[in-house]
C-alpha cells in the first residue's frame, strides 16, 4: 500500500457536502439520509437474496439464505465466539504493535535525514512485494502458534503507520513551526504542541488502513496454519462443504472488522475534539 499516502485525494475523497442539493422530496431530510439510505440498500439486498434463495430453490450448499445463516449463527454461537475471540485478540495485538513500530519508524524518518535516506527506500521497495506471499515463510520462521500470525499481522500493517506518521509530522504548517522557533520553544515542546497535534489526522488515516491490514494478516495466517480462529473455521467448514458456517463465520469476521474500524473512528473523533484540530 505504498501508494496510498494520507492527505492524497484518495484519503480526502467522499466529501459530498459541496454538491448542489437535489430537489426530490425523498432527499429533503438531510440528517437522516446518510443513515437511512445505506441501511435501506442493505435491507433491499438482503431481501432480494432471501427471495432468490427461496424462489429458485438454491441449495444451501451453494448459497444459504440469510435466515439460514442467521439460524446457523445462533446455533453455533459459542463455537463462533471461541474462534472469534482468538482472531480478535490477535488482530488487536497486531494492530497495537504495528502502531508502536510504525510511530517509531515514522518519527525516525521525519526527524533524521540519514535514517530517511537509508531506510525509507528499502521500506518502499519492500512494499511492492505482495506481502501475502510471504505468509508461508512466517509460519516456517515462527512456527504454527500465535506468534507467526501476530508477526505477520504486524508485518502487513506497520507500513501505513510509518507512512502516515512520517508525512503527518513533516507536513506541518511551516508558519506554526516558525512561530515556535520565534518563541524559543525546544524541539520537544514543538513536538508536543505543534507537530504531534498536526500529525494526528494523518496518523488516524494510517490507523484506519492498518487495522484492516492487521485483520487480513491474521486471517490469512489462520488460513495457512489452521489451528484456531475464524480463518481456520472458514477453511475447515469449506473442506466439509458447510456453506452456512462459512457465511456465519464471515459475518462475525465482518462485525469484528467494522467494530475495530469503528473504534478507530471513535478514537479519532474524541482525540481530535480534545485537541481541537480543525478537520478539513
Amino acid at each position: 500500500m505504498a501508494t496510498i499516502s494520507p492527505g492524497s485525494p484518495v484519503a480526502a475523497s467522499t466529501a459530498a457536502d459541496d454538491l448542489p442539493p437535489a430537489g426530490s422530496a425523498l432527499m429533503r431530510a438531510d440528517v437522516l439520509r446518510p443513515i437511512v439510505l445505506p441501511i435501506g440498500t442493505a435491507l433491499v439486498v438482503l431481501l432480494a437474496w432471501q427471495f432468490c434463495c427461496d424462489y429458485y430453490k438454491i441449495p444451501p450448499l451453494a448459497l444459504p439464505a440469510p435466515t439460514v445463516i442467521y439460524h446457523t449463527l445462533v446455533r453455533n454461537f459459542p463455537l463462533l465466539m471461541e474462534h472469534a475471540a482468538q482472531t480478535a485478540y490477535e488482530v488487536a495485538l497486531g494492530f497495537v504493535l504495528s502502531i508502536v513500530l510504525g510511530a517509531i519508524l515514522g518519527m525516525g524518518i521525519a526527524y533524521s535525514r540519514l535514517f530517511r535516506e537509508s531506510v525509507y527506500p528499502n521500506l518502499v521497495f519492500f512494499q511492492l512485494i505482495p506481502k501475502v506471499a510471504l505468509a508461508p515463510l512466517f509460519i516456517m520462521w515462527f512456527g504454527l502458534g500465535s506468534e507467526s500470525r501476530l508477526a505477520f499481522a504486524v508485518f502487513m500493517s506497520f507500513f501505513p503507520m510509518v507512512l502516515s506518521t512520517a508525512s503527518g509530522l513533516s507536513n506541518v504548517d511551516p508558519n506554526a513551526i516558525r512561530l515556535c522557533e520565534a518563541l524559543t520553544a525546544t524541539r520537544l515542546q514543538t513536538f508536543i504542541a505543534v507537530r504531534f497535534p498536526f500529525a494526528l489526522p494523518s496518523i488516524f488515516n494510517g490507523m484506519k488502513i492498518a487495522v484492516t491490514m492487521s485483520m487480513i494478516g491474521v486471517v490469512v495466517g489462520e488460513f495457512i496454519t489452521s489451528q484456531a480462529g475464524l480463518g481456520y473455521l472458514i477453511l475447515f467448514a469449506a473442506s466439509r462443504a458447510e456453506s452456512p458456517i462459512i457465511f456465519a463465520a464471515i459475518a462475525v469476521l465482518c462485525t469484528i472488522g467494522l467494530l475495530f474500524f469503528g473504534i478507530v473512528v471513535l478514537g479519532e473523533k474524541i482525540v481530535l475534539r480534545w485537541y481541537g484540530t480543525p478537520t478539513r
Partner: protein
Amino acid sequence: LRQVLEFLEQDTRLASALRVLLSILCVLIIWQLVSLFVTNRLLLVPPADVGAALVKEVQLGNMWNNAVATITAVVTSFLVSVAIGIAIGLALASSRLLSLTGGPVLSALNSVPIIALAPLFVAWLGLGFASKFVLVLLVAVFPVVVTTEAGLRAADKPLIEAARSFNATKWQIFTTVTFPYALPFIVSGVRVAWARALVGIVVAEFFGSFAGFGFAILSASQTFDTARVLGYVFVLGAMGLIGSIAFASLERHLAPWRQE
C-alpha cells in the same frame, strides 16, 4: 572515488537509479554475509541460493507454467476490474442518490477483509481460473471506484464554470474538463489496484489452484524449501515493481502539473 561520489549525489535520473541499485546491492551483500554466520537454512537462505533455486525452476519449466497461470489470470482480471471500477466511479460521481446509497455500502465492503472469502469462491467456482478471476476482481475494483469518483468530484469549479459560460454541453464538459482532470487520480487508483490484484491472486492460488506463483510458494513452504519460496516472492515483487513504476510514470505523464 570523490568523482564517483559526486556523480552519485547528482539529481539526474541515472544517478538516482544508481543510488537505488547501490542500496539494493548493499542489502544483498549484508544478507549474504549474515547467512555465513546464521547457518540454519530454514531461517535464512543466502541470496545466491535463492538465485540458484530460481534458475533451477526455470530450467525445469515450472517457472513458465506458473507464470502463464498467474499472469493470464491476474492481467485479465485486473483489466476487467479497472473497466468496471471506472464505470462504477462514473455512475457514483454523476448521481447524488446513487453515491449516497451505494457509497457507504461500498466503503463498508472495502473495510471488510474480502480475502477471507477466498475459500468460498474456490468452493463455488472450483479450482482454477474462475475463482482467481473473481477474487482478484473483488479486491482490485475498490481503489479504482474510489479514485474515479474523487477525481471527477475534484475538478476545478472555475474551469467548469468557464466551460459552461462558453455554452459547453454536459458531454463536452465531461470530455474536455472533468475527465482529463480526473485521469491522474484514476491512474493512481489503478496503481493501487495492481498491487491489490497481486495480493488477491496469491491468496486465491494458495487455496484454489494447481499452478501459479501462490501455489508454488505454498508447496515449496510445505517442503521447507525456503530458497524456492523466496525466489517466487522475488518474481512477484518484480511484477509489483514494474507495475508501480509504469503507472507512476503514466501518472506523471498525464498530470505534469501535479508535481509534489
